[in-house]
């Protein structure tokens, strides 16, 4: 029988307003083994923790129960407090009477009763807790960054600057990401390439950074400090060591009909290509779907013109296995598919484009060499309409419920740049709200309106109608004037909602990192741990976690790097002692547990056992506690009840159930 102390927290009014904490204290005092019970307004505060420590020492407590918030919030806090007072930290149990009780109930009578029951269950469990000891695991001092956009580049640079090795895995042929596709950046209007390309060069030149471009993460195993990752280096068909980047192959390539991904399909590229002039590495890849040699066996022109002899049609994909201590997800975003938005005639008219396509149109290296022109007939537009929130803040199945956050600012930027360069062009912006919180952001938007005469109309566009003369009829509403608007436009630009890059679900699954309904990766805590995934050792950088502009992305990238550095600076990590173990006398070696284990932690050994005096050799399951994450899947799957989870044994769980049902 343990000597147990129970500590009931008010959490200000969070718990105390719905649960009668005094009554909880009085009731649990009657429970078997409880020798001490008290309440306090903020148990997690320094004074509250001191109270716990004092009681442990004075009453010689062997186990404690804290009735408070979720263990995800403060289990670690109370375990540390107990440890400081000389108690084994695994003798601490949390009864969650906030999230599971006070926050979800209104009736005080019922909530109090439930709080008592939850406390009773925790007390029953503590009686059976044992003094677990964490083990240790070594930390591999190398980080992996998935995604080579500005988020990934910045995270990698910051980690590398602290002296750790970093690998960047980027699926396209070059690092640079979405930012490399932008023309100018708000709110300062400096050119995107001018501020990005030096960072790309820094990343490539850094002795601690290793780039795997045109590569994808194939599989991930292991755990925090000890990840093992398979990376698929897709065949470039160009030898990276020999290629000088002269570009002759791209010039001579006869197949030039593939849509340029970099220019959002607005123009074409050769079959052997680098996505853009400043690509890093400046080594082309061969797109096997467009390459004549690959399709028919005839051609081979690039091989003939290559002075360096770098073309190698026989190259194969290569799998590299590498060990990492930490993994950063920086997979970025794409714009949503507009097939569902027929009313904007995006698929019907080449003069209806997305804002990201406009970036390419405005860019000197883009499909129109930077001239603002209609993609249908090359004519200069006189009237341009911007439509905000296309697919953002949308409450039906077609779009996204969230605000994409960057559109108000880039639309103000586009409108301003157009009015500046082409003062004879009229620019109208249809908006729901203009949202410009950010340093110098609102001033920027107001300049667009006040100095550049951009016409902002509060209201949504219902339909864009292609007219027989090639112009577009925009039908919308002006909510402030209460009027229907019909206006002619030469070009319509859609501020299209952004969503996480398509492959992110697959990556999240490999990392067992959680993801929300919109495919954004979930942070460990929305306020206090915004750059960490709930999965230990996995960190988040950039838009994969939620919509962000460049300054915010760079800040978050730095923050993620700091967390990685903090992890890699440790030589050893304490491992969770709550791992599974197999009772060799009960185990019959059936392999069911091995099949359900997601971490590959279970193996089999031939062991000599003494079963009631009978000595024999049996095949039994053995858990590698360094790999086991304590998920408990094996304990449920085991048909003979041989598998048990330390800290959450079947006996403990059933004792809780009994206490609840008493």
């Amino acid at each position, binding site marked *: 029988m343990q000597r147990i102390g129970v500590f009931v927290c008010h959490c200000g009014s969070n718990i105390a307003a719905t649960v009668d904490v005094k009554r909880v204290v009085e009731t649990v005092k009657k429970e078997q083994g409880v020798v001490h019970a008290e309440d306090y307004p903020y148990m997690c505060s320094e004074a509250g923790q001191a109270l716990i420590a004092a009681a442990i020492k004075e009453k010689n407590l062997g186990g404690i129960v804290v009735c408070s918030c979720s263990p995800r919030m403060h289990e670690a806090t109370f375990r540390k407090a107990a440890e400081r007072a000389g108690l084994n930290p695994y003798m601490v149990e949390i009864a969650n009477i906030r999230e599971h009780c006070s926050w979800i109930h209104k009736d005080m009578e019922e909530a109090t009763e439930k709080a008592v029951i939850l406390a009773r269950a925790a007390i029953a469990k503590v009686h059976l807790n044992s003094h677990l000891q964490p083990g240790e695991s070594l930390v591999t001092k190398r980080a992996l960054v998935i995604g080579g956009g500005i988020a990934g580049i910045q995270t990698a640079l910051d980690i590398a600057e602290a002296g750790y090795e970093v690998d960047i895995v980027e699926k396209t042929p070059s690092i640079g990401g979405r930012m490399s596709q932008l023309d100018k950046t708000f709110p300062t209007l400096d050119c995107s390439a001018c501020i990005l390309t030096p960072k790309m060069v820094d990343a490539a030149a850094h002795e601690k950074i290793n780039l795997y471009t045109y590569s994808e993460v194939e599989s991930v195993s292991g755990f925090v400090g000890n990840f093992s990752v398979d990376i698929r280096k897709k065949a470039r068909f160009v030898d990276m060591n020999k290629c000088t980047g002269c570009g002759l192959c791209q010039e001579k390539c006869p197949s030039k009909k593939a849509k340029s991904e970099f220019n959002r399909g607005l123009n074409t590229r050769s079959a052997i290509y680098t996505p853009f002039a400043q690509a890093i590495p400046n080594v082309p890849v061969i797109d096997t779907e467009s390459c004549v040699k690959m399709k028919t066996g005839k051609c081979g022109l690039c091989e003939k013109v290559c002075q360096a002899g770098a073309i190698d049609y026989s190259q194969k994909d290569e799998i590299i296995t590498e060990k990492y201590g930490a993994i950063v997800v920086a997979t970025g975003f794409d714009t949503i598919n507009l097939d569902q*938005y*027929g*009313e904007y*005639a995006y*698929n*019907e008219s080449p003069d209806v484009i997305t804002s990201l396509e406009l970036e390419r149109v405005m860019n000197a290296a883009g499909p129109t060499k930077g001239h603002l022109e209609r993609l249908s007939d090359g004519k200069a537009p006189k009237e341009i309409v911007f439509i905000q929130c296309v697919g953002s803040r949308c409450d039906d199945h077609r779009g996204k419920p969230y605000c994409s956050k960057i559109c108000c600012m880039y639309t103000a930027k586009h409108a301003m740049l157009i009015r500046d360069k082409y003062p004879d062009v009229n620019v109208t912006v249809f908006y729901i709200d203009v949202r410009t919180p950010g340093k110098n952001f609102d001033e920027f938007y107001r300049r667009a309106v006040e100095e550049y005469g951009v016409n902002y109309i509060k209201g949504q566009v219902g*339909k864009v*109608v*292609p*007219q*027989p*003369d090639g112009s577009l*009829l925009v039908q919308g509403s002006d909510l402030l004037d209460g009027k229907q608007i019909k206006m002619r436009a030469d070009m319509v630009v859609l501020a299209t909602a952004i969503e996480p890059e398509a492959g992110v679900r697959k990556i999240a699954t490999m990392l067992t990192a959680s993801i929300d309904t919109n495919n954004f990766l979930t942070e460990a805590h929305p306020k206090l741990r915004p750059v960490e995934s709930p999965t230990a050792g996995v960190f988040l950088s950039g838009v994969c976690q939620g919509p962000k502009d460049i300054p915010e992305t760079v800040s978050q990238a730095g923050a993620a790097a700091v967390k990685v550095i903090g992890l890699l600076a440790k030589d050893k990590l304490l491992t969770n002692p709550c791992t599974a173990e197999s009772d060799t006398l009960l185990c019959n070696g059936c392999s069911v547990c091995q099949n359900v284990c997601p971490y590959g932690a279970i193996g089999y050994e031939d062991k000599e056992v003494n079963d009631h005096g009978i000595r024999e050799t049996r095949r039994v399951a053995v858990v590698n506690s360094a790999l086991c994450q304590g998920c408990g899947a094996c304990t449920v799957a085991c048909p003979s009840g041989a598998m048990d989870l330390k800290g959450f044994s079947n006996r403990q769980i059933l004792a809780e159930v009994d206490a609840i049902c008493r």
Partner: protein
Amino acid sequence: MKYSYYPGCTLRTKAKELDTYARKSAEALGFTLEEVENWQCCGGVYPLGTDEVATKLSSVRALRDAKEKGQALVTLCSACHHVLKRVNDDMKNVPKVRDAANLYMGEEEPYMGETEVLHFLEVLRDKIGFEELAKKVVNPLTGKKIGAYYGCLLLRPGQILGFDDPENPTIIEDFIRAIGAEPVSYAMRNECCGGYISLRDGEKAQNMCDAIMENAAGFGAEMLLTACPLCMYNLNKSDKLPVYYFTELLAEALGVKEAE
């Protein structure tokens, strides 16, 4: 194949030809339209009041009648189709309306929205198939450039009507192709004609129809095709392009237009 058929009031008065040609075409295509006995007016407009039940009862009676015969219910008029389809959806998915309506009906077995409501065009597309239809065409309307005019009642709300993509529908274009003519796609084919607003503000409806006609003519349409008597009424105020019911051209293509 036999279908229950709900013609609706307008097809007895102003839109007789929509009805006549449909019956003739149906026989030519090998199916029969069996008129629901004692059908009553659908009300013409789907009532949006969430507590409105009485005006939905006539639809429920027709739907129920079809259920008893074990037939799908076919409609022609866009407005009737819209009302019947939405009331049927209510009976299937809105317990409040379903329970109240069944209470009014007082029948032993409640109606739970079992009947399949089909527009005549859906029968052509989904039951006959446009390819099969094309094979039965004896008098293809080759060379005719026809703009499909959908209006709104057939398409929206898209999830309940389930007729076609409400923004970029293609069913009438496919129909036009099947009868041998050339469809002209134009942007305003699913714009509203003004509907009943023509009773209160004729000019507004006229302006809306003028814009539709102009857009269609600009893209090269020589005539418009509709399934809706109300659209026909409004569009006919504008004399830019001739407007036909789709059943008339169907009967013509099938060679049964003049048949008795």
